[in-house]
């Protein structure tokens, strides 16, 4: 361990060379809020919400990209820090269609703003990520009640032409997390900062829609977006976060074994997100994130089926299992176990594969068992 220390909120804390103030604070469970900071990507300090007060420094400094240094005395929630954060949040809320109720106002102005936003995003409701928004959380935490509304029309229309992701530029706070997620984490290099000043927009090269770009719809940007600018199309205005329960499991597509959360409402998987652990550390691909509809497909088999005269009829488990067991027994006893074969599956669990091979060997008495590894 390093013996170098700095002081945060009156506590002497040791740090490793190269650690940022933010990293040291987090390691010691001191909460410095962040917005643009994305794990695994280069910290930029762009949003400035992580500013802290350092004794002797003229200005507040950003904790996410300032290295810890011996002897620093840091305050993370001083009056100056809180005032600065309030102002940052206020500016962000005023920069677009942030029509969550924390703007709290009964003014006529608020009502007309709300009506305008609903007209623009085609909804009759509040922001689609209401209750699941980092900016809203911060506005609540710092009790920011913005009174200045941007009454102008949204500068850029929503992009809804791809099947997976809705891009609502009117709610983008230009934090750059999506750009980092795309370029530094997934390295798909599909999006970047475009235009300047008030025209600023996250764009693909040539500002084409995602579907005509290098985008592969991994959804890393959606998972990284702290506000309502990037939302899964199927989830938008359909699923509220507190209505769902999350279950951590392993993806059922390729062999990487990504860890993911299945978000379930009414016994139905309605959304998938990546879990922040090995081997994928939050990342998923388009199949893992958006390819869950088969689970609840109406085409799923629901009953055992027995073929009679060329067509299937439904059967009870007892009837179907007795038929299979009886036939297997008869064939084994007449022609020997080696006249039978079993194909198991990479789609089954280890437990199920184990039981199937045990059945093949111990009951059918053959080693005729294989699976699709070869195919």
């Amino acid at each position, binding site marked *: 361990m390093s013996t170098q220390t700095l002081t945060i909120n009156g506590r002497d804390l040791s740090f490793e060379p190269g650690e940022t103030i933010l990293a040291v604070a987090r390691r010691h469970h001191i909460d410095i809020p962040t917005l643009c900071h994305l794990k695994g990507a280069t910290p930029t300090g762009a949003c400035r919400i992580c500013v802290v007060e350092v004794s002797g420094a003229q200005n507040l400094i950003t904790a996410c990209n300032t290295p810890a240094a011996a002897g620093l005395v840091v305050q993370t929630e001083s009056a100056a820090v809180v005032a600065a954060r309030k102002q940052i949040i206020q500016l962000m809320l005023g920069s677009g269609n942030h029509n969550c109720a924390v703007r709290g106002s009964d003014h006529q102005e608020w009502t007309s703003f709300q009506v305008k936003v609903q007209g623009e995003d085609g909804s009759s409701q509040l922001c689609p990520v209401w209750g699941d928004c980092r900016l809203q959380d911060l506005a609540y935490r710092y009790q920011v009640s913005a009174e200045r509304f941007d009454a102008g029309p949204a500068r850029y229309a929503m992009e809804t032409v791809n099947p997976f992701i809705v891009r609502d530029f009117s709610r983008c706070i230009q934090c750059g997390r999506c750009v980092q997620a795309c370029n*530094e984490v997934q390295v798909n290099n599909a999006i970047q900062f475009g235009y300047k000043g008030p025209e600023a927009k996250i764009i693909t090269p040539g500002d084409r829609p995602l579907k005509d770009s290098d985008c592969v719809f991994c959804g890393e940007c959606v998972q990284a977006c702290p506000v309502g600018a990037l939302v899964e199309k199927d989830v938008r205005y359909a699923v509220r976060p507190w209505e769902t329960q999350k279950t951590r499991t392993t993806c059922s*597509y390729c062999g990487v074994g990504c860890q993911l959360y299945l978000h379930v409402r009414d016994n139905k998987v309605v959304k998938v997100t990546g879990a922040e652990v090995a081997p994928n550390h939050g990342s998923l691909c388009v199949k893992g994130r958006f390819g869950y509809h088969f689970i609840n497909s109406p085409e799923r*088999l629901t009953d055992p089926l027995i073929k009679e005269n060329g067509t299937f009829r439904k059967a009870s488990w007892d009837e179907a299992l007795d038929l299979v067991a009886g036939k297997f027994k008869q064939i084994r006893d007449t022609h020997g176990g080696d006249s039978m074969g079993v194909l*198991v599956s990479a789609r089954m669990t280890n437990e199920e594969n184990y039981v199937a091979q*045990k*059945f093949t060997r111990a009951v059918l*008495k053959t*080693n005729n068992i294989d*699976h699709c590894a070869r*195919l």
Partner: protein
Amino acid sequence: MTNTIADIEQADVILVTGSNTTENHPVLSTVIKRAVKFRGAKLIVVDPRRIKLTEFAHLWLRPNLGTDVAWINGLMHVILKEKLNKADFIANRTEGFDALSKMLEKYTPDFVEGITGIPAENLEAAAKMFAGAKAGSILYCMGITQHISGTDNVKSLANLAMITGHLGAPGTGVNPLRGQNNVQGACDMGGLPNVYTAYQPVADLAMARKMEEAWGVTGLSTQPGLTVTKMLPKAHAGELKALYIIGENPMLSDADLNHVEKSLKHLDFLVVQDIFLTETAQMADVVLPSACFAEKDGTFSNTERRVQRVRQAVTAPGQAKEDWWITAQIASRMGYPMQYADSRAIFEEIARVTPSYAGISYRRIEDEGLHWPCPTEEHPGTPILHTQQFTRGKGLFHAIEWIPPAEQVDEEYPLYLTTGRLLYQYHTGTMTMKSEDLNERAPESFVEISGKDAAKYNLQDGDQVTIASRRGEIRVRVRIQDKAVEGTVFIPFHFAQGAANQLTNGALDPVSGIPEFKVCAVKIGKAA
């Protein structure tokens, strides 16, 4: 994989061959791309198609289909000639080097260029780059294994890793990327004709005795069984009477589908257990409905040998049941009582009879999976294999000569066909094709062809064409794409309409039994 996924980021040279990683293992590809973009790693891609990863590569070698042993031998020839081999590793940890070295003499860059079409100077550059690495990692996938010489290809890659000492250390290794979520686990669990769990051979009488005792039975067969690619001909010949297929769709995934269909029709009794009424299930006498991954508890083992939990999130539709329950019921009704309380109880039995899983329990992998081998409860798991020695002790070099693929182009069938997957679909599509959004991105089969070949056959993008091999004919749409290289076309195998496997060659690798999906000869013509 001998090493882990995260470990790839430790390599300073990465050689990717026969893997369209960004489409088939997208999340794993991010590790490769980050290593190149942010850590200065060098990337060598050896692939017949101009896949996305070639844009990140420092060197792209484009071999003719089915010439892998030749270019790998060529790399080793250059490495020996330039004395870039790792002499101490070869001396201390391997055997058979002299025979290999002698065999390699004739694989000069010019000789190899004649077989593979890879320019001699590119081969030399790649050899120097890979051998010069402090840590070199080899990643491969079905583009290496789905050949009649698939086993030779893999052994040749192992030769290359050993000759350069790129094994048993961080950032190195011979790393096959498993294409399906639990292929690794299905193999580990003994879903193979020649081994019990953890690759314990069925032919070993002591092993049979051990399993008989564990399972409370007698008379376990010590005769290795049939592979899937041998079972079907036996069914065709009437020797195999019954087949119990769980979660597989050979009616779309196997080579030479017309033959598969005839073989299945010859069976006396076919039972298919699946989540959908697949092409294969439609042929069954009895179909048993099973639960999908979101509806059950258990474990999967990923491509880096990490055993991870699967947890139930929703209940299965209708009467559908977990596969283990169904199989255990059949066993019990055949007079062998198989009763487990839950998947945990099965896993505990697995740990008892499987040395490499012996130390793994649900409790230990609650938060993060463990890499087998993990022989005891205190063992931390094994992220990197072969750090001290190989499974057999010393690593054995195999002197392997190149053999041509089973089918060559000729006047009648002048184009090579290779097959594979697309980003937006998965295997036979039974899962992904239920998502309309994925179908919108990849709605139908197609043939990917180079601009030059398209011009040669007077084809426009979007034209309907017929493609025929000696085994079948399909109708698909033309896509003129930069990925394609002149003389070779590509068709994804996901789709039942325009199924690539109507065309593919069922010729098998004699050791692995894997068909040569990656090479056959076809002809193309505008559809009438």
